[in-house]
């Protein structure tokens, strides 16, 4: 059992709270950067996909997990980011311009959504974001001159300072670096006044106002940061897929993002990564499992989404805190062994507290 002996407040501010943190996270980052040396092209591609999901999920987590604003339409920001990036590259600009523009335009999108959305809450907000996503997808199909419409659009490779990024491991490292920077930015927000204000707005808007927080400003901030990060993820998705069609950014992608952060652990940064890994692994895993089943079952069309949905339901019913929640319990068990008390995480018997009176 590790006992942390704190001697000054600065220790509480640090991201790495003790030697163990420094060691394990350092090792993780080292392994991540060294991955191209150990894995071959296919797996590097899969890893890149997981990193892109994680980036998109990070953006969504900022908005939904930390500020409590539900979004069923985050795929729209990925679409804006992806098409903006592709367009600028196609017109001769380098990624140095295209990527920031992708983030910027997504941010503007986020701002536009934020202003009406900040006045809504709960289910209305969710459905408004869903509507926004459907409209963006429709628009992407119609703006044929810019997006190539439903026939699709080719994406050039990223270009940095004249160097073209063709190889998959180069893309992987690029995405990894940007993801790390984005994660650090989010972690910084979380330990500053803005982050606390976001959590305050999530937990009790009324109370936060009484403490001087301006919920409108916070929500707009959360939306813009969230949109920017998810927009960047979309830009990288464009490079991963090499060919864009509006259908990629449909409702199912938005739902998948939401599923990802909830399954991973809502309201935590760890949850983003756990969720991304889970979704990435699940897609491959189900294919493998399907082959293992007898043909009469495995051969049925639609068995994959069925298993996916079944797993989803089980996780939510039995571990709503997600993978990260379960991990915390396991870690506590190991830390406090043999005096771990299962009841310390017992869920209160909950009665519905109506949200219609707020």
């Amino acid at each position, binding site marked *: 059992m590790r006992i942390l002996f704190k001697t000054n407040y600065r220790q509480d501010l640090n991201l790495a709270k003790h030697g163990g943190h420094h060691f394990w996270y350092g090792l993780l980052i080292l392994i991540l950067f060294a991955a191209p040396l150990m894995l071959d092209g296919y797996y590097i591609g899969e890893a890149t996909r997981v990193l892109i999901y994680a980036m998109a999920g990070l953006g969504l987590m900022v908005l939904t997990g930390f500020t409590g604003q539900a979004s069923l339409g985050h795929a729209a920001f990925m679409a804006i980011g992806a098409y903006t990036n592709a367009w600028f590259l196609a017109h001769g600009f380098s990624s140095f311009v295209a990527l920031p523009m992708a983030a910027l335009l997504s941010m503007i999108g986020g701002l536009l959504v934020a202003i009406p959305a900040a006045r809504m809450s709960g289910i209305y907000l969710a459905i408004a974001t869903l509507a926004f996503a459907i409209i963006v997808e429709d628009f992407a199909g*119609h703006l044929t001159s810019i997006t190539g419409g439903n026939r699709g659009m080719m994406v050039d490779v990223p270009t940095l300072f004249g160097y073209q990024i063709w190889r998959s491991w180069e893309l992987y490292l690029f995405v990894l670096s940007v993801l790390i920077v984005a994660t650090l930015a989010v972690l910084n927000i979380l330990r500053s006044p803005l982050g606390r204000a976001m959590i305050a707005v999530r937990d009790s808007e009324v109370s936060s106002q009484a403490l001087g927080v301006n919920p409108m400003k916070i929500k707009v901030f959360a939306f813009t940061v969230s949109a920017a990060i998810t927009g960047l993820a979309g830009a990288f998705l464009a490079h991963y897929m090499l060919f864009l069609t509006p259908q990629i950014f449909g409702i199912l992608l938005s739902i998948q993002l939401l599923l990802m952060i909830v399954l991973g652990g809502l309201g935590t940064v760890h949850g983003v990564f756990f969720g991304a890994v889970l979704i990435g692994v699940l897609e491959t895993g189900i294919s493998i499992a399907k082959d293992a089943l007898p043909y009469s079952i495995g051969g049925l069309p639609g068995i994959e989404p069925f298993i996916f949905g079944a797993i989803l339901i089980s996780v939510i019913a039995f571990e709503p805190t997600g993978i990260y929640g379960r991990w915390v319990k396991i870690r506590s068990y190991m830390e406090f062994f043999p005096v771990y008390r299962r009841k310390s995480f017992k869920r209160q018997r*909950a009665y519905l507290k109506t949200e219609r009176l*707020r």
Partner: protein
Amino acid sequence: MNEFLQLLIVGISQGCIYGLMALGFVMIYKATEMVNFAQGDMMMLGSFVAWTLIMDLGMPFWLGVPATLIIMALFGALVDILIVRRVIGQPQFAIVILTLGLGIVFRAAAGMIWGQVPLTIDSPISGFSSFYGIVIGNERLAIIAVTALLIVILWAYFRYSKWGIAMKAASQNQLAAYYSGIPVRVIISAVWAVAAAISALAGILLAPITLIEPMNGLLGIKAFAAAVIGGFGSMPGAILGGLIVGIIEPFAAAYVPAVKGSLVYVVMLIVLALRPQGLFAQIHRKKL
């Protein structure tokens, strides 16, 4: 003018379908504050079950329909008892994900059981009626008539019957309902049963007009928009919202085909911008 009326009636009949599904949503929301993203998929399952009974097993239409409703009602109650009950009291998120998951499972199961080839049900009233220069399929008229009848039945039920009143009580304050001796869990299962049956009815009414396939479940999203326009906690609002959405579609398809996919959602956003709680607001100020 004739064309206008034609489009209007088509729109109203479509709107009734959306209204029925929206009604199912709203009933479940009022009772448990859960948003059932699988509502559209329950409609879809209803039409498949009806197909099996009527077309596959050869049951007469007038027997197959009530049988389907009973089966789907039981199904809805089972979904509540076995799965949804586990997440009562959890934050909205858990519920949203759960029902999204249910929707995925229902769609996939439908594909597994009935395959992806679209099916159809022969309707006993097929043919067209014409009046005032308009020609309308009989099925469409049936949709409007049945919906109107159902609305009257439901209104009376919630106003006068003990169970209906109990449902309203459980929807406003679960804990108080428990204390008053209302068997809240049974009531909630009953709500799910009724909502499932209503959706199944919508599916049956719709079946002769469109083909039955698993993707029909995604119609639920439009029904969702309808419920939001009407105001999520209001049953008359659900019907009204459904009608609005239903009417917009054929007119959009006829006059502005370019935006017909998203016009409904644009309208929804406009309604939300002007009246954030929908047309029949149900959210009140909390007593601080």
